[in-house]
C-alpha cells in the first residue's frame, strides 16, 4: 500500500536540546529512521546535535551535522536530491524550517514531497487565526483570541475581552513569549517581548482553573482514526502542559466526558487533514461538559513521546509509516506483534509525568511557573495507584526529595501564596498544607487542582501520620507497612517517619526496613506493559515494579546471563542526551556480545527507554532500593554504572556493600576519585599538580587560606555533577555573601575552597582504560578560559592550539591516574594548563558529557570499547589517533535564557546550558560557524554593540573589532570600549549605559529598535553597578532575540570566523565524507 516512488528521504532533526524541545525528538526521529530502514528507504538526516542516538552509525544512511535552517537544508537537498522529506519528527525547529522551505518554493523546485501531514494542514494549526477559522467550520470551540501586531491593538483587545488575558506569540515553541496578564502594565511588558519573537501576538480570555486534557490522535490517509492515549493535567489550566504534573489515562473524566472529547479530537484531525499523528489539547470546564480546544500540534511532540512510553504504542514509528502511504490496518501492534496497530491501548496501570526544573542554577530567574515552559526535563512513574506513582515520580526528579512526604524541607513561608501562585515547589506546599490541617476543600479553592488528586495526596499524609505514631519498626502492623508500600513509600521514607529526628544513620535504618518487609513478604512485583491490559497474550519486555499486585509477569531464569545497565534519569542541566547515547551504545554492545541487555531508566524522552533497544526494560527508579529490588529478581552477571552519568555512579559504594558485581572500575576506585581528600592525596603521592584547595568549616579558616592563595577562589560543596552551588569569589564581599548561601545549602558538609587560576586553558581527557592501561583517548580543548563550566564551554577536538609538550604531559598524567585507580572502563579528567604548567581539576570514572562528541569526531566508539572492557573481552588499541584527522569538531552549547525570565545570561562555573551541538569543518573557523548558527546565532548583517570588559579582554577583542570595521559593520560601544576602539583607530559610535539615563543614545533603546544584530557584552568586574548595567543589556538582548556573546575568547573566535569565512563558502559535507 505504500508509495513506491519514495526511495530516499530527508529527515530534519531538532538540533540542540533546549527548554521546550528536548530529547523526545531524538526518540521520535530514531523511530522514524527505523521505520524507513525497514522499508529499504535511504535516509538522510540533518541534525547538529552530535550527542543524539539518531546521529549514530546504523540509524541514518547519511548524517549532516548542520544547522536545521532553510539555508543549510536547501544546500543538502540540492546535494542529496531526496524524494521525500519528514518534517514532523524534529519538533518546532523542523516544522518551522519545513514551512519556510515550502513557502519559498524550495521543496517544489527540487521535487521533494512532504510525507505525512500536508504543509497546508500544518499552517492551519500553527497560525492561530487560520486555526480558529478552521475549527469554526466544524463548530468546534476554540479559545477566541484577537491577533494583533502592535502594543496599541493588544491593549484594545484586552480591554474588550476583560482581564485576566493570556498573551501568546504565534509560531513559537512551548509557549515562548506567552503569559498571563492581570492588568495593562503586565500586558504591555509581555506583548513587547512577544513581538520580538513573532510578528503576530494573540490576546485571549483566560480560562484559569479549567481542567487541561490532551488526546494523542492518529489518522491514516484512508481516514481511519484512533486516539492512542489521553492525559490529564494535575495542575489546572494556566500552567503550560510541559510545566504540569500529568497523568495518563485521565482520572477525573467520566465515560461521557472521555468519549465526548475523544470524538471531538477525531472530528478535528479529520477536518484538518493530518496524516500521521497530532495532539489535541483541551480546556475542560470542571462543572459542565463545556470545553475549548487550546491547540493542535500537527507533529510529534513531547506529549506524543510521553504517550508512546505511557502506552507502549510507538507513535513516531507508526506516523512515519503512515507518511509513506500505509493504512493503520496494514500495520501490526509492535508489542503483541499479532494484533493490529489500529487499536487504542488499554492501560492497566497509571503513569505520572513530573517536570524537572533547574531554576536554582540561574541568578535572578523567576520561580513562578505558568504558561511558558521552564522545565528542562521530565520523568515518568508507572504504578497501580496514584499514590504510588506520585511518590515514585517525586523521587525520580532527583532533587533530593524522597517522595511526597519524608523530605527534609524547611517550611515554606506564606503557604497560601505558595499554593495560589504555583512555583516549581508547589507540590510540596500541598504536603505542608495537608500536614498543617488544611482541608482538601481549602487547598482546592487555592489551587483549583481537582479534589480527586488532593484526596489521594491526603491518603499519603494519613499513612505518614500513622507511621509516626510508632517509634519502633517491629511494632508497625504488617498491614500498615504494606499499605505504605502500596502508596509508594520508600524504605527511607518509612524509616524517617518512624525515627524522625532520631534518624542518625539513614543508610542502616533503611536497610532495616528493607529486611523487615522482606521478612514479612512485602515485595514489589514486576508487571508488563502489553497495550491490551492482559486481554490477549503478549510477549513484552517493557516492565515496571509495583506493590499493588502479587504475581510477577516475568518468569526469571536466574541464568546469570543478564547485564544490567543503569540509565541517566531525568534530563537536567549537566546530564542529558549524551548519557542516553552512552547507555544505548552500552546496551547495543552487551546485546551484540550475546548477553541479555537490561535497562533501568525512567526518562520518557530517551531512546534507552524504547523497549526495542534492549532485551528487558525496567521503566523504574534508579534509587538504591529499586535497583536492589530489580537486581534481586534479575540476578544478573553484572551491572554497569559508568554510562549513565552521576546518578548510577553515586550508587557504586552502596551497591558494592551489598556484594553487587559492578562491571569495570571498582567501587573503591570510584570512591577514591569522587572523594576529594582521597583523590587529592593520591595526586600528591603521584606528584601530580592540582590547584591548591582546602576543606574548611569556619570563616576564620577560610580567610586564613585565602591569605595564602589570594583571590579569586572557587567555593563549592563536595559530590556535585554540574557545579550546583559552586561559585567563583573575587573579593571579600562576594565571599561572605556566597558563603551564607552555600552554608544554607548544605550545613553538615564543609566548604571546599580552591585557588582559582585566571587565564588558564581548560583541557579534557576522555578515555577508556583496561586494567589500568589506556586503550583509547581523546584530548580536547576549551575555547574559553577556565572559569566557564566545561558543560557550557565551546570545545574543539582535536585541539588546535595546545603545545606538544602540554599534550605529552596530559597523556602521561592520565596514564598515571588510570594505573593508580586501576581503571577498567570509561573515564574523564579535566586539566588546567597555563604555560605548560598542568594541573588536574577533576576526574570521573565514568563516561563524560563529551564521549559522543569525541567518539563521533574520531569515528571510534568509546562506549563500545568501554563496554567490551567491562565485559572482560579483549580490546585492541585503535590504530588511528587525533593527529590523523584533517578536520576539526566543535562542540558548542545551547542556552535557553529566553525561556527563563529574569535570569542573567552570563556564564560561570555553574553550568547553565541546556544542550549542545557538535559540528565538523575543514578548519576550526568553519566548524565554529556551523556550531554557532546551530545554537541559534545569526551571522550579523550590519551592526554590533560592544562592551568588552577589562583592559585585557578589550585587547583580546581588538583584532575582532578591526575585522568588523573592515567588513563595514557599524560598531556601537559603551564608554570605555568606545574610547579604547577610538584610540586604536577603529570607528565606533558611543552609546550609554542604563545607569546614565540622561544621555543619548541609550544602549537599550538600540536593542529595542533592532538597530544591532549582535551584542558582545563581557562582564568586566563584579561591582554592583557594573553587574546591573551589564545585566540589563544582556537580558534585553535575550528578550529581544538578539544574539549575545559574553565571553571574550569565544566572541573573538566567532567574529574572526564569520568575517573571514563567507557563509556560501561553507562546505556541505556529511559525516562520512570527512
Amino acid at each position, binding site marked *: 500500500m505504500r508509495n513506491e516512488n519514495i526511495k530516499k528521504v530527508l529527515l530534519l532533526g531538532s538540533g540542540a536540546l533546549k527548554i521546550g524541545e528536548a530529547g523526545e525528538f531524538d526518540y521520535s526521529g530514531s523511530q522514524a529512521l527505523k521505520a524507513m530502514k525497514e522499508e529499504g528507504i535511504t535516509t538522510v538526516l540533518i541534525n547538529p546535535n552530535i550527542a543524539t542516538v539518531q546521529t549514530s552509525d546504523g540509524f541514518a544512511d547519511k548524517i549532516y551535522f548542520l544547522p536545521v535552517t532553510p539555508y543549510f537544508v536547501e544546500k543538502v537537498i540540492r546535494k542529496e536530491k531526496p524524494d521525500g522529506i519528514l518534517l514532523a519528527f524534529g519538533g518546532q525547529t523542523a516544522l518551522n524550517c519545513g514551512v519556510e522551505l515550502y513557502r519559498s518554493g524550495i521543496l517544489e523546485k527540487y521535487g521533494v514531497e512532504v510525507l505525512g501531514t500536508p504543509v497546508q494542514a500544518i499552517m492551519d494549526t500553527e497560525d492561530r487565526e487560520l486555526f480558529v477559522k478552521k475549527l469554526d467550520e466544524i463548530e468546534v470551540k476554540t479559545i477566541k483570541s484577537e491577533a494583533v501586531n502592535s502594543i496599541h491593538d493588544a491593549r484594545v483587545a484586552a480591554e474588550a475581552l476583560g482581564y485576566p488575558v493570556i498573551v501568546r506569540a504565534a509560531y513559537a515553541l512551548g509557549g515562548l513569549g506567552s503569559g498571563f496578564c492581570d492588568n495593562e502594565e503586565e500586558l504591555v511588558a509581555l506583548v513587547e517581548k512577544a513581538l520580538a519573537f513573532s510578528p503576530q501576538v494573540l490576546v485571549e480570555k483566560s480560562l484559569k482553573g479549567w481542567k487541561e486534557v490532551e488526546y494523542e490522535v492518529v489518522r491514516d490517509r484512508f481516514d481511519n482514526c484512533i486516539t492512542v492515549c489521553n492525559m490529564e493535567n494535575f495542575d489546572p489550566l494556566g500552567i503550560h502542559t510541559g510545566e504540569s504534573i500529568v497523568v495518563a489515562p485521565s482520572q*477525573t473524566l467520566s*465515560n461521557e466526558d472521555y*468519549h465526548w472529547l475523544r470524538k471531538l479530537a477525531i472530528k478535528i484531525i479529520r477536518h484538518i487533514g493530518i496524516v500521521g499523528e497530532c495532539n489535541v489539547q483541551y480546556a475542560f470546564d470542571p462543572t459542565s461538559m463545556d470545553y475549548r480546544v487550546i491547540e493542535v500540534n500537527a507533529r510529534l511532540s513531547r506529549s506524543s513521546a510521553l504517550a508512546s512510553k505511557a502506552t507502549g504504542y510507538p507513535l513516531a514509528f507508526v506516523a512515519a509509516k503512515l507518511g509513506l502511504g500505509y493504512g493503520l490496518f496494514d500495520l501490526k501492534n509492535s508489542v503483541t506483534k499479532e*494484533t*493490529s496497530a489500529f487499536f487504542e491501548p488499554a492501560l*492497566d496501570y497509571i503513569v505520572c509525568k513530573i517536570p524537572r526544573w533547574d531554576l536554582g542554577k540561574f541568578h535572578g530567574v523567576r520561580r513562578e511557573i505558568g504558561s511558558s515552559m521552564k522545565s528542562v526535563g521530565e520523568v515518568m512513574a508507572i504504578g497501580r495507584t*496514584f499514590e504510588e506513582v506520585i511518590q515514585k515520580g517525586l523521587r525520580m526528579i532527583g532533587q533530593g526529595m524522597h517522595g511526597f512526604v519524608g523530605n527534609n524541607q524547611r517550611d515554606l513561608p506564606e503557604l497560601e501564596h505558595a499554593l495560589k501562585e504555583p512555583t516549581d515547589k508547589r507540590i510540596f506546599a500541598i504536603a505542608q498544607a495537608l500536614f498543617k490541617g488544611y482541608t482538601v476543600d481549602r487547598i482546592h479553592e487555592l489551587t483549583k487542582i481537582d479534589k480527586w488528586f488532593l484526596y489521594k495526596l491526603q491518603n499519603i499524609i494519613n499513612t505518614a501520620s500513622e507511621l509516626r505514631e510508632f517509634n519502633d519498626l517491629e511494632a508497625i502492623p504488617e498491614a500498615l507497612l504494606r499499605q505504605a508500600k502500596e502508596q509508594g513509600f520508600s524504605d527511607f521514607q518509612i524509616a524517617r517517619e518512624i525515627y524522625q529526628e532520631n534518624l542518625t544513620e539513614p543508610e542502616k535504618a533503611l536497610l532495616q526496613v528493607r529486611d523487615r518487609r522482606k521478612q514479612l513478604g512485602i515485595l514489589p512485583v514486576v508487571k508488563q506493559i502489553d497495550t491490551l491490559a492482559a486481554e490477549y497474550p503478549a510477549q513484552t519486555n517493557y516492565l515496571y515494579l509495583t506493590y499493588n*499486585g502479587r504475581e510477577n509477569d516475568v518468569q526469571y531464569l536466574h541464568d546469570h546471563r543478564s547485564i544490567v545497565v543503569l540509565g541517566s534519569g531525568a534530563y537536567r542541566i549537566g546530564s542529558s542526551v549524551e548519557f542516553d547515547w552512552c547507555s544505548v551504545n552500552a546496551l547495543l554492545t552487551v546485546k551484540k556480545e550475546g548477553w541479555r541487555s537490561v535497562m533501568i531508566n525512567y526518562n520518557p524522552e530517551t531512546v534507552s527507554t524504547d523497549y526495542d533497544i534492549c532485551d528487558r526494560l525496567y521503566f523504574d527508579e534508579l534509587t538504591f532500593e529499586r535497583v536492589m529490588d530489580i537486581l534481586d529478581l534479575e540476578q544478573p552477571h553484572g551491572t554497569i554504572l559508568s554510562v549513565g552519568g552521576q546518578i548510577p555512579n553515586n550508587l557504586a559504594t552502596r551497591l558494592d556493600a551489598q556484594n553487587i558485581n559492578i562491571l569495570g572500575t571498582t567501587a573503591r576506585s570510584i570512591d577514591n576519585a569522587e572523594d576529594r581528600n582521597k583523590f587529592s592525596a593520591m595526586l600528591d603521592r603521584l606528584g601530580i599538580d592540582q590547584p591548591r584547595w582546602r576543606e574548611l568549616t569556619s570563616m576564620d579558616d577560610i580567610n586564613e587560606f585565602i591569605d595564602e592563595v589570594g583571590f579569586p577562589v572557587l567555593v563549592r560543596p563536595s559530590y556535585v555533577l554540574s557545579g550546583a552551588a559552586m561559585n567563583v569569589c573575587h573579593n571579600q564581599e562576594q565571599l561572605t555573601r556566597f558563603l551564607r548561601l552555600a552554608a544554607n545549602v548544605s550545613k553538615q558538609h564543609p566548604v571546599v575552597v580552591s585557588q582559582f587560576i585566571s587565564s588558564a586553558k581548560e583541557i579534557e581527557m576522555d578515555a577508556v582504560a583496561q586494567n589500568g592501561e589506556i586503550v583509547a583517548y581523546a584530548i580536547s580543548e576549551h575555547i574559553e578560559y577556565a572559569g566557564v563550566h566545561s558543560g557550557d564551554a565551546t570545545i574543539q577536538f582535536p585541539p588546535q592550539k595546545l603545545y606538544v609538550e602540554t599534550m605529552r604531559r596530559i597523556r602521561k598524567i592520565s596514564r598515571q591516574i588510570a594505573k593508580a585507580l586501576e581503571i577498567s572502563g570509561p573515564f574523564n579528567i579535566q586539566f588546567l594548563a597555563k604555560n605548560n604548567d598542568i594541573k588536574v581539576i577533576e576526574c570521573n570514572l565514568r563516561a563524560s558529557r563529551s564521549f559522543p562528541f569525541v567518539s563521533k569526531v574520531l569515528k571510534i566508539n568509546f562506549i563500545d570499547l568501554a563496554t567490551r572492557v567491562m565485559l572482560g573481552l579483549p580490546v585492541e588499541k585503535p590504530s588511528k589517533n587525533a593527529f590523523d584527522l584533517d578536520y576539526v569538531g566543535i562542540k558548542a552549547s545551547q542556552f535557553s535564557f529566553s525561556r527563563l525570565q529574569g535570569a542573567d545570561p552570563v556564564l560561570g562555573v555553574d553550568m547553565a546550558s541546556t544542550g549542545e551541538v557538535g559540528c565538523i569543518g575543514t578548519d576550526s573557523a568553519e566548524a565554529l560557524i556551523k556550531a554557532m548558527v546551530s545554537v541559534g546565532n545569526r551571522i550579523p548583517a550590519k551592526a554590533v554593540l560592544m562592551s568588552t570588559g577589562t583592559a585585557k579582554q578589550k585587547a583580546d577583542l581588538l583584532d575582532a573589532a578591526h575585522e568588523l570595521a573592515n567588513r563595514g559593520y557599524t560598531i556601537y560601544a559603551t564608554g570605555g570600549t568606545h574610547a579604547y576602539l577610538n584610540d586604536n583607530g577603529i570607528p565606533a559610535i558611543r552609546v550609554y549605559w542604563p545607569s546614565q539615563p540622561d544621555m543619548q543614545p541609550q544602549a537599550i533603546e538600540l536593542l529595542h529598535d533592532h538597530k544591532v544584530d549582535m551584542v558582545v557584552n563581557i562582564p568586566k568586574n563584579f561591582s554592583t553597578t557594573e553587574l546591573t548595567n551589564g545585566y540589563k543589556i544582556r537580558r534585553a538582548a535575550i528578550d529581544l532575540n538578539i544574539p549575545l556573546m559574553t565571553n571574550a575568547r569565544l566572541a573573538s573566535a566567532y567574529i574572526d570566523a564569520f568575517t573571514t569565512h563567507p557563509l556560501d563558502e561553507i562546505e556541505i559535507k556529511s559525516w562520512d565524507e570527512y
Partner: protein
Amino acid sequence: MRQFKRAVLILEDGTTFEGKSFGYEASTSGEVVFNTAMTGYPESLTDPSYEGQILVTTYPILGNYGVPPRRERDDVSEYYESDHIHCRAIVAQDYSYDHSHWQADRSLAQWLKEEKIPGIYGIDTRQLTKHLREHGSMLGKIVIDGCDDVDFYDPNRENLVGKVSCREVEYHGAGEKTVVLVDCGVKHNIIRCLTRRGVKVVRVPWNYDFTTIPYDGLFISNGPGNPDMAEETVGLIRKAMEIGKPICGICMGNQLLSKAAGAKIYKLKYGHRSHNQPVRRVGSNQCFITSQNHGFAVDNETLPADWEPLFINMNDGTNEGIRHKTKPFFSAQFHPEASSGPKDTEFLFDEFINLL
C-alpha cells in the same frame, strides 16, 4: 488505617484472591469476567449483558468520579443502561473512597450498598485477568468476613435473556416509522439512539410474537448469556425474515440473527472484553474502534450462501457482523450504541433508519 472487612474471591478451580470489601457486605457468586475499559463503571454495572456476572475491571483505580444521579428522561434512565445494577459484584485493584465529579450525587460504594451489590478491591486484577483469559470465564464467589458462605452459581444454566427482558410491551419516542425492539436485555442507549432519530420504538419481551403488529423495522438488542437459551427469539426472527422488513441486531442480536440465518455460534478462545476492539468493514479500508463484551462468536464458515460477513475483527479475524446479500438485514457483534466506550460506529443506527 481505614476499617474494612476482608473479602475473598474464590474461583471454581480453587484459586483465591484476598481483598477488601467496599460495597454491600454479603457474600455472592456468579461468573467472573473482566473488561479492559478504562472508564464507564456506572454504564457497565447497569448493562443487562452482565446479568449474573462478577465484573473485574483491569483498569486498577475504580470509583474516581462517583456515580451520576438515578434519573429518567423520556422513559429511560438518563445516565444508566437499565434501572438497576445487573453485575453481581465488582472487583478492582484500588478503590477511590473519595470521588470528584460535578455530576456525581454519591459514591460508588454508596450505590453498591443501596443496590446490595458487593465490591472488593486490593486484588491483583492483572493476575486475575490473565487467569481468566487462559481458562476462559469461570465461576467464582466472593465471601466476606462475617457473612455466610454461598454456593457457586452458574448463570449460563439459566435463561438470562428471559430474566432481564421486559415483561410487557413498552413504547418509547414518536415518529412516523415504527421499530420493534426485541428486548433481550436492552441497554437504554440503544433506545436513546433509536428515538433520537425520530422513530417510534415498540419494545417487546424476548419471546413476544411481534409479527402480529405492524412495523417498519426490527431491532434485536444485546443481552446476557448463551444465545442457545433464546431459541424462541430465533424462531420469531425467522418469521420476520420472511416478512422482509429491515432487521438490525447488536451483540446477542447479531448471534440470534446469525442463528436464524442458519449459521453456527462457537465459544472464543479469548473473549472480546474491551473498548478498543478494531473492526474492519469487509471489502473496504474503513476501520473502527468498538466497544465489545462477548465470549461467543458467529462462525463465518457456516454463514449460508446468501449471507456474508459485514465486519471482521482485525485482531483475531473473527466475525463482527453479518449482512444479507440482497435483503435489508444486518447486524453487528460490537456495540454501536457504545455507552460505555467509543461512539465511532453510531452511524449504523443511521444506516438502519435509512432502510426503513
